[in-house]
């Protein structure tokens, strides 16, 4: 805990500009920065540095994932891996049965060293069929999806304006894009962000 606090204090101090003991200063010309990463996968082809599927086993810092096309993936979680499950979270929140998308670097042994893992993330385009206490009933391609508002987590973006926690402007019958976390093996999700047109 202290280590984590110290680290955060260090990072916060650095971000606010009160720097101690810094020795280097690199230039960051836009052209140099924008050329930093080149994607080399052929258009239309599968990306070896990407994986998707359901988690079948969690072992140490490894996730064994069965792809939807039945291919198995071993995914390594490192200190630098970001884990999203409704919000940025930690490895201990990941469970067997969760679905995921992962991006990272494929190692020579076939393992994917993950930079980012998005657990149970879904991006739905749907209509609001009805609303209940802290929930939306969505019509999504003929399926009824129950989308739960999670106080303190869920956000709404109305026509591109800054995100707010207030969901009360959502209207029955309107079209929405909902980014959320699926509850495995159910028709329910928790809402991360609702995008609503004006």
């Amino acid at each position, binding site marked *: 805990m202290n280590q984590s606090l110290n680290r955060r204090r260090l990072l916060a101090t650095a*971000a606010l500009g009160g720097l101690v*003991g810094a020795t280097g200063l690199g230039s960051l010309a836009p052209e140099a920065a924008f050329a930093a990463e080149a994607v080399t996968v052929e258009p239309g082809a599968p990306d070896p540095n990407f994986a998707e599927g359901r988690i079948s086993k969690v072992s140490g810092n490894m996730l064994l994932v069965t792809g939807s096309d039945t291919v198995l993936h071993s995914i390594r979680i490192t200190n630098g891996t*970001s884990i999203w499950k409704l919000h940025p979270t930690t490895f201990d929140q990941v469970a067997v049965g969760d679905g995921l998308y992962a991006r990272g670097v494929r190692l020579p042994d076939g393992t994917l060293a993950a930079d980012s893992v998005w657990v149970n993330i879904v991006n739905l385009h749907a209509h609001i069929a009805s609303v209940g206490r802290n929930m939306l009933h969505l019509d999504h391609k*003929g399926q009824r999806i129950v989308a739960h*508002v999670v106080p303190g987590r*869920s956000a709404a973006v109305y026509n591109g304006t800054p995100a707010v926690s207030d969901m009360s402007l959502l209207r029955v019958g309107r079209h929405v894009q909902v980014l959320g976390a699926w509850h495995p093996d159910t028709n329910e999700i928790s809402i991360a962000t609702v995008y609503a047109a004006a």
Partner: protein
Amino acid sequence: MIEVLAALQPLVLGAVLIWSARVKLFSRRAAAAANRSALVRLLGQDRALPAYRVLGGVELTLGALLLAPPALRLEAIAATGLAVGFLAYLTYARRVAPTSSCGCLSAQPIPVSGRSLARAGLLVAAGVLAGLAAGGWWTALAARPLAGAAVLLAELALVVALSPELDAAWLLPLRRLRAWLTRPLRGGSGVPLLAAVQQIQLSDAYRRVAPLLRSDVREHWDDGDGRFVGHAAHYQGRPVTAVFAVPLADPEPDAVRVAVVDDATGETLLSLAGTPRPAGPRLTVVPA
């Protein structure tokens, strides 16, 4: 009573078929409706719209014949056949192309649901009943106007209740009214993390370091008046953390600052802060 019910069925069937034909023949969105329907899967992309239009023509013709005298048993048989065809098609659509649209009574994208199937079943039953009628609907209605009107209203209400296409006219307003009265989504407060992330992404500081970022948001915390958001990144060939500082009280993107900190040594390798200027956003590299 059963005679009245049977005699009125051509009126119900005719009204539903003409309403359905109206969408297929005269709606500006008919092409979209056809292309969203399972006809694309059944007949192919090129034949979906012509088939949709032809079906509309058949519905209009049969609907007009059902409404106009004389009342012929053949019309009832044809209507039953058409309704059985609808039922078979909708069953096929639900099984083979569940995300396709019904294309039935509206050009709106409405997937085939249990209600659509029940409505087709109701039309089949109406067709069978119509075949049992001894006279025209106008005769039955003239003989027993009150009972006839009640039957008609009840049956049309059932058709409306079984038509998801018509929900926007009655069900959704009712649900909106309930939501307006009960305010089930009230109570959201506070600044969501996304607001800080949006502010960061609007900043030029973010655009400058974005290509270095390797991960999504890895950690975030509030401290004093600021919210801090960290990403894993690579800079000068080493793993680093890019940490953004967002003042909670200042929504301007120019208020966002970022530092790139070496994960191994804790050294600050780079620090950028936006400086608000009327001439446009500029970035200052703060000596570390």
